[in-house]
């Protein structure tokens, strides 16, 4: 907080500076990772055919889900009802759905029966402040990157082509709303763009403006209960428009690069984007495993283990129509052994056999455990 008074920030940025944004894409369409400084976010878009909502039979359905994974921060827990998660979800929905950036009517396949449901899952991987911005960038980039399967409608029949048969098609996106967050300190006197986690913890209020590059405001959200002057809000929106155009350029460049890489046939995905030069990363190529003596080893092992005998002895049937369970097992009570020996010779033999079987069984089991 004291640093703000000196007009300096913890990581050396200026008040209106964004942290470094890095966008990478995954192997399949619709997967994108965004790094905003140390904050990491992953977005995945998937689609399926469902029945449409009743009051909107011509439109597809969009479903947004932000997961505050416990990976991101020790305060996040698996149960999802935390305030922050609800707030982020609501903001993202307003930003993307109410601004109508995606043409939902183009998602309709058979009116009233089948439409595409586009599902966007955003996972927080590391929380270092400003989750909302990172989430919005990731979501819109993933939507731009996503390709849905091609379909053909013939009367009532709908055929969905797999990606191998026909190239999948991109979604139709009108504009890219991106949110910019401003944090306020000391009742609105000081303002910082893109707060990092420590700044977020001490801030008084947060203002989030979602805009697209055509300078249209998509949504404004102010939280924290601070009161802002009109010209402050206008100033923020001007800053936001500058930032948004920069970020939009970055996104389009990243999408272009990815398209080129895919056309060139190179493998793309998380594996490829592993930084090679970093000391903390290492890569190894495909390697064969020596399996020349595997068969002999396996044979040896099997020779040593014996087949475990039937552990459940079949019930003895002394007379037809009568079944007995639990007969023929050696009873472990020392007292009754003497009694058994006095009985007829047949049963004695049976008992002796079972005794031997049990011994083998225990030996076999022992050997089994030795190997494993």
């Amino acid at each position, binding site marked *: 907080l004291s640093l703000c008074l000196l007009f300096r920030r913890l990581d050396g940025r200026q008040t209106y500076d964004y942290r470094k944004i890095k966008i990478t894409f995954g192997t399949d369409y619709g997967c994108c990772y965004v790094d905003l400084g140390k904050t990491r976010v992953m977005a995945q878009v998937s689609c399926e055919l469902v029945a449409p909502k009743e009051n909107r039979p011509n439109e597809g359905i969009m479903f947004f889900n932000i997961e505050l994974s416990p990976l991101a921060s020790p305060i996040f827990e698996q149960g999802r009802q935390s305030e922050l998660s609800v707030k982020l979800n609501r903001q993202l929905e307003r930003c993307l759905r109410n601004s109508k950036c995606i043409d939902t009517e183009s998602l309709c396949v058979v009116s009233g029966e089948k439409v595409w449901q586009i599902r966007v899952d955003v996972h927080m991987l590391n929380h270092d402040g400003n989750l909302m911005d990172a989430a919005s960038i990731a979501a819109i980039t993933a939507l731009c990157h996503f390709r849905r399967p091609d379909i053909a409608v013939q009367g009532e029949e709908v055929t969905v082509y797999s990606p191998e048969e026909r190239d999948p098609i991109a979604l139709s996106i009108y504009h890219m709303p991106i949110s910019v967050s401003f944090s306020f300190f000391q009742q609105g006197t000081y303002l910082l763009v893109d707060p990092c986690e420590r700044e977020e913890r001490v801030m008084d209020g947060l203002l989030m403006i979602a805009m697209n590059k055509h300078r249209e405001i998509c949504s404004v959200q102010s939280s924290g209960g601070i009161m802002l002057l009109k010209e402050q809000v206008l100033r923020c929106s001007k800053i936001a428009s500058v930032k948004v155009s920069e970020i939009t350029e970055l996104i389009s460049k990243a999408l272009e690069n990815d398209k080129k890489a895919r056309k060139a046939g190179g493998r793309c995905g998380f594996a490829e984007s592993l930084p090679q030069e970093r000391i903390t990363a290492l890569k190894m190529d495909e390697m064969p495993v020596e399996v020349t003596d595997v068969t002999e080893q396996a*044979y040896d092992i099997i020779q040593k283990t014996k087949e475990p005998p039937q552990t459940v002895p079949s019930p003895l049937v002394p007379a037809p129509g009568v079944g007995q369970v639990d007969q023929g097992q050696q009873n472990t009570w020392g007292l009754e052994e003497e009694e058994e020996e006095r009985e007829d010779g047949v049963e004695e033999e049976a008992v002796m056999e079972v005794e031997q079987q049990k011994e083998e069984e225990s030996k076999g089991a022992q050997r089994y455990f030795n190997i494993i």
Partner: protein
Amino acid sequence: MTSFTCDESVSLCEGNMMEVCGSTDSCLREFGCEQSLLSRPDGSASFVQGDTSVLAGVYGPAEVKVSKEIYDRATLEVLVQPKVGLPTVKERSQEQCVRETCEASLLLTLHPRSSLTLVLQVLHDDGSLLSCSLNAACMALMDAGLPMSCLFCGVTCAIDADGRIITDPTAAQEKESRALLTFAVDSTERKVLMSSTRGSFSVHELQQCIAVSQKASEKIFQFYRDSVRRRYSKTL
């Protein structure tokens, strides 16, 4: 009687060996790993096998809720987050497998009444997901500096319809396989810590797969050593 049964089993083996050819197609896909890539968790690692990649993060030892505390050991909690949707029963069973392996190799008694949280995020699934998760978990635990009695690694084998054993299968190979076996192998004595299988296979095939996994684990442990050596090459 004893010898009688032994002979029987031997002859069975020979019969099996002739029918089910013990040919294996084992090569491990490209590996990649990155440690300490997240700033918040105490230890984090991402492990990549071909196209399958899993990100693991460890928090701990930290405070544990009174309801979950164990008086003489640390409480280990594993969470597997799938890419799309909420965690289902499948993720719970994977969590169980990973937790059993970790509890067998971590020295939990050194941190009583604390909690260790291991979170695994699936970044892309192209086959052998459970073994990739195990590898990522081990690297993250190493990165966090938690005391372990041994390292572990995961190897997946698939037996396809012809009886060939394929190590580290891709999703397409997994789909066509008759059986899929995943083993967690420990580093000190190459023993099997955990096994998770699906499908039907014979005892002979099982032992072959275990032997193949033990061989493959040597490569993986060498990879662990190389990456850790590289990581600390500047400091040591």
